[in-house]
């Protein structure tokens, strides 16, 4: 891939991990395809998601220290993070529920778009639609985990390349790198070279977003996010640094956008982008870890399971009109531990 200030060491994955990564990447792809189909069949109003980011996002999900509270990692994600959630153990059927906006949708009870996850028991902060705001919010959980607090977890924030033009990205750079007050913040940019229709060069004067980290004295890396081995190794290296040093790190992963920006641009498969899953499957075949037939069979099975699940989800109830008034205010301080 392109220039990297601290090149990630090529760490060969164990066979077990290789197969696990593949399995989760495939499950994620099948989920996204099901969500797109649901959208196209009128079982949802909007689709946005992460086909093309599975290699990176699944690796991230496997490496997260999952749990609740400051001793575990906080995740401030955006709308392409299904791979991360599935790797953490989320049920793909819950994503179908959010697409269908049923009352059983555990992330928002029918209130929010697909891919807008929220899982407090795993420190997954709510994904919200405004671009880049998660970078301003992530500094807060990171401060609650800063050196001196004794907290073991770190905060991880992720967004696209175009969004880094927002002030919130600069906020995260500035606040996380103050000398003596550094924050344990892993800043991730998944760069698909587009913001909706505007190409990277139309938004930025530099070649890589990661360059900006250097002015703030933080280690940076640019990696091939289509390569699960490179992604896994680079995320691990960055996390280890943030976890032990309690300081920020900026990691830029070059990824693909395989179904365009969202359903607003048609959500059809884009042929001229690298497909991390196809590339990985080719490698697995070459290495004789899995045969094409085995992988086809897995795909057919996962596809069938989600097709059947989507039929069931269709029968699940929508939220009631009166429920609009629920949860405007919290009656207890749940995040403060009140039950």
């Amino acid at each position, binding site marked *: 891939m392109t220039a990297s200030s601290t090149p990630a060491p090529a760490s060969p994955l164990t066979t077990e991990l290789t197969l696990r990564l593949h399995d989760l990447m495939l499950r994620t792809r099948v989920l996204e395809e099901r969500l797109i189909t649901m959208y196209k069949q009128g079982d949802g109003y909007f689709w946005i998601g992460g086909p093309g980011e599975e290699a990176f996002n699944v690796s991230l999900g496997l490496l997260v220290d999952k749990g609740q*509270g*400051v001793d575990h990692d*906080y995740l401030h994600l955006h709308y392409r993070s299904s791979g991360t959630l599935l790797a953490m153990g989320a049920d793909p059927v819950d994503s179908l529920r959010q697409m269908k906006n049923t009352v059983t949708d555990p*992330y*928002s*009870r029918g*209130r*929010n778009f697909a891919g*807008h996850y*929220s*899982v*407090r028991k795993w420190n997954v*902060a*709510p994904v*919200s639609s*405004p671009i880049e*705001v998660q*970078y*301003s*919010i*992530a*500094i*807060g*959980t*990171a*401060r*609650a*985990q800063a050196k001196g607090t004794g907290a073991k977890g770190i*905060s991880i924030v992720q967004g696209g390349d175009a969004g880094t033009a927002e*002030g*919130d990205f600069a*906020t995260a750079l*500035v*606040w996380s790198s*103050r000398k003596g007050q550094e924050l344990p913040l892993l800043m991730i940019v998944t760069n698909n070279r587009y913001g909706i229709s505007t190409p990277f060069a139309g938004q930025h004067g530099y070649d890589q977003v990661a360059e900006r980290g250097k002015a703030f004295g933080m280690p940076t890396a640019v990696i091939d996010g289509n390569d699960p081995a490179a992604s896994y190794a680079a995320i691990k290296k960055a996390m280890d640094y943030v976890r032990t040093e309690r300081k920020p790190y900026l990691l830029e992963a070059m990824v693909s956008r395989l179904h365009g920006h969202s359903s607003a641009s048609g959500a059809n498969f884009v042929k001229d982008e690298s497909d991390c899953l196809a590339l990985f499957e080719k490698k697995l075949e070459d290495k004789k870890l899995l045969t094409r037939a085995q992988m086809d069979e897995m795909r057919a099975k996962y596809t069938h399971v989600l097709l059947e699940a989507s039929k069931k989800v269709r029968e699940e109830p929508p939220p009631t009109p009166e429920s609009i008034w*629920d*949860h*405007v*205010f*919290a*009656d*207890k*301080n*749940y*995040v*403060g*531990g*009140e039950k």
Partner: protein
Amino acid sequence: MATMVQAIRMALHVGESKLGVTDIFGEDVGPPLGGVFTATQGLRTTWNTPLDERGVIGMAIGLALAGRKPVAEIQFCDYAFNTIDLLKIAGNTCWSTAGDWNVPLVMMTPVGAGIRGSIYHSHSFDAQATRIPGWKIVMPSTPRDAYGLLLSAIRDPNPVMFLKPKALLRVKSRPGEEIPGEPADEKTLSKMIDAPLGDRSAWKPEWPTLEELFIPIGKARVARSGTQVTVLTYGRNVPMCVAAADELAADNIDAEIVDLRSLHPYDWDAIKESVRKTNRVLCVNEDTEITNFGEHLIRRITEELFYELHAPPKLLAGAHLPGIGLADALEMASVPQKDGIKRAIAELARHQP
């Protein structure tokens, strides 16, 4: 008798020593300054932020999500406008996650005119604030209410905006409005908790033993009781309206001044009770008059209490101007003043259906 700014400082002290406040922060909030209005002097958990309001609000949300209890300051509400989408997130997080998360933070910010602050230190925020659902919004007009409302804001599991009427920050409480535990003598209190001018690196406050006082959010206070006209107001305009009403008493006009204290949720029962008694309503606030919070109150009063009214409800608010000019005459002509309030009350009192 404490000033409002001392009351706020004492509430924050109680907050950080008894109510779990972990972080009090904002631009120049920590040492050495302790806030541009001295509201955060001598506190234990204060710290300075970069000059970045979006960062201040984002930080507060993040800290709250991580189980801390932050009190964030925006130095002047005039500089909170670039944070509005983050304020919306603070307000919608509990709702959009169907109760998965809550965001227990307090944002405090000085608001309003009255100090000749020119175009960018005179803004009001109540109209904006009340358009951000999911927040509770309070605005005191006395030091005691500032103390009690801030303690309630700190204890609340939701985001609460504490609007500080900057023209009242140095005004002392009146007898009967003491903060429980404050020393009777104001010089003693000042010696104990006001930082000395100049080098204060070795200075430490000596906090009085304060009692907790929770003024409930959502409860108004009758600042002056009367029978002929109801004036619904808050913040800086409360003492102004009371003074106007006191002067009108000589003309046999008896106005009731209701200090709302909470703009959301607001005390509809108290409003109803007063309007049913007087049958005439005036809303007074400093925000620009088009799409003004007082307009909302008038709309609801008109819809729900129409047949109780003996005169068309009236709004006295800031002129719909792009700014408040610096010169005396300009500021005075831009936001309600005592004489205008007197005229408006008198007109309502004399109006014959």
